[in-house]
């Protein structure tokens, strides 16, 4: 697949992070081009979620550099908030605002951060909710929705910010099996529309079908990266072979 050679949307350079004695990220170097769908896989504890969270600084790093569209990630304050606004994030546990309606969840960002007028924000939000198929639930609160519906709302909430890239941190891991596909379908559609995506997931079929590149992590390191077909059919490292063997049949 042709990847533009312009400034990468997301770039990590020599990123290191420790949790006490635990070296969770070891010299991570990664760049994500515009429109690219990057899927990160690996055994649990490999640091893939942590890496995903460093990209909008929900996790700090000890050394190295993270750039969003060529701009170093600010350390704090309004500059950091402004950069976060450009990178959407979807969490494993949805994290919808429990005290707000579905519609208010989606309009929160545009109204509070982008200062979009309320009517416009609500119209856009309804359009997004229609796209992810939960517009009929707009007046409810998150606890009244199924996990799959909540996660689709969470995606709509991120999209409402018109992000330049989206991070997905195990978006289907907390879902009942029958709800995984409805969320993946929304993500596939996003990918086809050219959204730049970093997806941490265990959904191998999704990775094979949608990813431009698969990154395999283990013990805080990027062990190998390749096109999905190459990676799944001809893994190079022993770690990747073992991992793929262990999840066969899933």
């Amino acid at each position, binding site marked *: 697949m042709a990847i533009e050679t312009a400034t990468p949307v997301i770039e990590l350079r020599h990123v290191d992070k420790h949790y006490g004695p635990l070296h969770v990220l070891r010299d991570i170097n990664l760049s994500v081009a515009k429109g690219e769908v990057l899927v990160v896989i690996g055994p649990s504890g490999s640091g893939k979620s942590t890496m995903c969270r460093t990209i909008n600084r929900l996790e700090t790093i000890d050394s190295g550099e993270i750039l969003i569209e060529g701009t170093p990630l600010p350390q704090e*304050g309004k500059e950091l*908030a402004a950069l976060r*606004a450009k990178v959407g*994030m979807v*969490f494993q546990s949805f*994290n919808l605002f429990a005290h707000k309606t579905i519609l208010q969840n989606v309009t*929160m*960002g545009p109204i509070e951060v982008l200062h979009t007028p309320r009517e416009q924000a609500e119209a856009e939000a309804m359009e997004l909710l229609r796209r992810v198929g939960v517009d009929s639930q707009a007046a409810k609160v998150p*606890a009244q929705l199924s996990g799959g519906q909540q996660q689709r709302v969470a995606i709509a*909430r991120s999209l409402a910010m018109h992000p330049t890239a989206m991070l997905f941190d195990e978006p289907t891991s907390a879902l009942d099996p029958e709800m995984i596909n409805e969320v993946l379908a929304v993500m596939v559609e996003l990918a086809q529309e050219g959204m730049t995506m970093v997806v941490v997931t265990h959904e191998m079929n999704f990775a094979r079908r949608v990813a431009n590149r698969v990154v395999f992590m283990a013990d805080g390191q990027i062990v190998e990266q390749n096109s999905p077909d190459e990676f799944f059919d001809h893994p190079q490292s022993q770690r990747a072979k073992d991992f793929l063997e262990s999840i066969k049949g899933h």
Partner: protein
Amino acid sequence: MSANVSMRDALYEAPGPKTRRRVAIGTGISVVLLLGLIAFVIRQFYVNDQLNPRYWSFFARWTTWRFLLRGLAGTIRVAFTAGIIAMILGLLLMLGRISHNRPLSVACHVITDLFRSLPSLLLIYFFFLVIPKYGLRMPSFWMITVPVALAASGVLAEVFRAGVNAVPKGQSEAAMALGMTHGKITRKIVLPQALRIVVPSLVSQLVVVVKDTTVAYVVSYPDLMQNARVLISNYDALVSMYFVVALIYIAINYATNQFSIYLAHREGTSIMSRTTENPV
């Protein structure tokens, strides 16, 4: 979700036949003991001539009740004002403590712990005996209200902080990811949820405020307790008067507790499973 599972359900195993029998026997024994205790109290009252009409007859007079009710109004005025001040101050102390401004945070932490650990009587003496020496004279209403409010604000700051800590971390992370600033996240996401969580404990904390007001006699503020003391010396009726006053305090605090239970249920259901009312 689990909002309707009460603590009792969660920690309570349904009893089997043996346990049920044991519970029945225990209940029987306690009822007998309780009745015995009541009989003993009444007997002691009788033996000590406390049931003599001269200790009770003045309760038939309206003036007695009017005087007590005036005291009750004083108690409620102090408790209410102190409660409001304590809530505002407690909220500010908590916000200061969780702020990213280090000196402010430390200062609020120290003040919170200070108010929390000082007995309210000590604070009252401070406002009653020490502060006037430095030229600040306050009416007796404020001499009781301010120290009671200060003492409660320390506790309430901790109640609020517990509420803030009880809001799942994912809520503020999601807000951060949207690009909201720390202040906005606190105002729009964390505080509204934290307040809902703490409303019940907040109200039951007001019971403590009501009880604290009873030391108003120190500053001669005419609250329920102070007025009861006046009546006691007038009628020389210590036991009967304290008995009635105790019942009034129990009634106030029982009502307050019921209110907090009501709020707990209402808030619990409204946040977890609000139905389709509240349309957009």
